[in-house]
């Protein structure tokens, strides 16, 4: 199983950019139900800019690549998804270490913890954290148990989707959706949805490297 170098992580980022572009309208549609109808647009703008930044000056190592993605998200997106996804990639960049599967799992966890710290959301607040934390747990556990990375990332993606679905019936307690109170129940959280796409993109690319 390969190392998380610039090639491998670049493939992940590009796959994620492709996925948010493919699901742009769906993300915006979810956001228009309980937010301000710009999540698809913002994620598309940010990830497209991130890929353009990677093309313009290709980073030579994985940590530098993640940092480029982070800084692009932070400086191009605004709103909440820019700082949150930016923080995720930035903390991952700082924790990537040797890029082994165990280091990647630890870096992903560090990224998710960064999101929790930045957004101050807890499980069940109905945010991207509800997809990301279970994914980080599943990834850590599977890698720790000696599973191959493709199996571990599949488990992480499944855990993310399960986490997203588990909070759909709930009332949102963070972000703009929280102003809706009861009316936010039974809607898929758009941030949780874009987080699932992120982990799915990892499973589709990194697990195969």
């Amino acid at each position, binding site marked *: 199983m390969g190392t998380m170098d610039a090639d491998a992580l670049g493939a992940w980022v590009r796959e994620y950019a492709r996925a948010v572009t493919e699901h742009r309208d769906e993300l915006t549609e979810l956001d228009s139900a309980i937010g301000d109808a710009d999540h698809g647009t913002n994620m598309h703008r940010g990830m497209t800019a991130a890929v353009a930044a990677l093309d313009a000056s290709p980073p030579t190592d994985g940590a530098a690549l993640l940092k480029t993605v982070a800084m692009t998200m932070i400086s191009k997106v605004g709103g909440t998804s820019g700082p949150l996804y930016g923080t995720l990639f930035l903390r991952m960049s700082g924790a990537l270490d040797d890029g082994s599967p165990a280091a990647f799992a630890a870096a992903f966890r560090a990224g998710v913890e960064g999101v929790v710290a*930045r957004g101050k959301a807890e499980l069940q607040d109905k945010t991207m954290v509800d997809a990301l934390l279970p994914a980080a747990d599943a990834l850590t556990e599977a890698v720790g148990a000696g599973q191959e990375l493709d199996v571990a990332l599949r488990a992480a993606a499944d855990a993310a989707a399960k986490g997203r679905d588990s909070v759909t019936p709930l009332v949102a307690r963070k972000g703009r959706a929280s102003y809706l109170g009861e009316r936010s129940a039974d809607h898929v959280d758009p941030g949780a949805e874009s987080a699932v796409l992120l982990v799915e993109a990892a499973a589709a690319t990194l697990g195969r490297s």
Partner: protein
Amino acid sequence: MKKLINDPADVVDDALRGMAAAHPELRIDSEHRVVFRGDAPVAGKVGLVSGGGSGHEPLHGGFVGLGMLDAACAGEVFTSPVPDQMVAATQGVDAGAGVLHIVKNYTGDVMNFEMAAELVAAESGTEVVSVVTDDDVAVQDSLYTAGRRGVGVTVLVEKLAGAAAEQGRPLAEVAEVARRVNAQGRSMGMALTSCTVPSAGKPTFNLPAGEMELGVGIHGEPGRRRVPVAPAREVAEMLLEPVLSDLDFTGGDGVLAFVNGMGGTPLLELYVVYAEVQAVLAKAGVTVARSLVGSYMTSLEMAGCSITLLKVDDELIRLWDAPVRTPALRWGV
């Protein structure tokens, strides 16, 4: 969608070009989308920086000038600006006395300003203090939400803290004025119509003819309830009731009463509302010390208004009366 624009994607940049042309006393950094006081940084003075999504004009760029803000960052319509902009604004107004960030309580604004403050601290060591405004009583149960939204009080914080900074007071004191104003102010808004974000091209929410949204947010966030359109007299009561029951405004030196238009309501109607506000307050035993009536914190072309009450004392009244020279507020100069 009918709007006086060129291209929806260029609205913010085009408007900033217009501001630059109309107000040569301001300096506009078009790369970072920051409106600066022409004479920033002002030696010895605490710098005041605010900013937020565009679409609320004159907030914030229209409040840049003597006695108010030193810089304002303009985000995309209804989207928080990014940290790079706030860093540029902060560094551009820092005259060594520190910088106050005035941030409306929306998740995106708070996060981006937080990141900017961290970046500034790491890069230059400029002292930054942030004050978050959260005066919207329409948000109930704020333990389980993102908290009360920052609305009308933000305008008053910018004026009053701006006057304190202009007097040469230190950062801690200017921040204390800002916090006190936020703590002593409450607001509630309503909408008669939705607004249309240029890039979306269609109304943000659907409000049937004959109905109004009570407690609406300045981005069209849903309010407390939807009720049949009522006369201004009843609207004033419906907006003031939750404000008055949230904080005791009686006694002391009275209040500053602020009737704010949402963008699509004529001043004529705002004065109709103000007359009713004055009457409701008189009946409630609340003395009005100062007033402000006009469209100062808008929501694009939304029709409707918000009412803000601020408990004032001698000091705040003096700060309110102090000279101000900005595109949108101007007196005493």
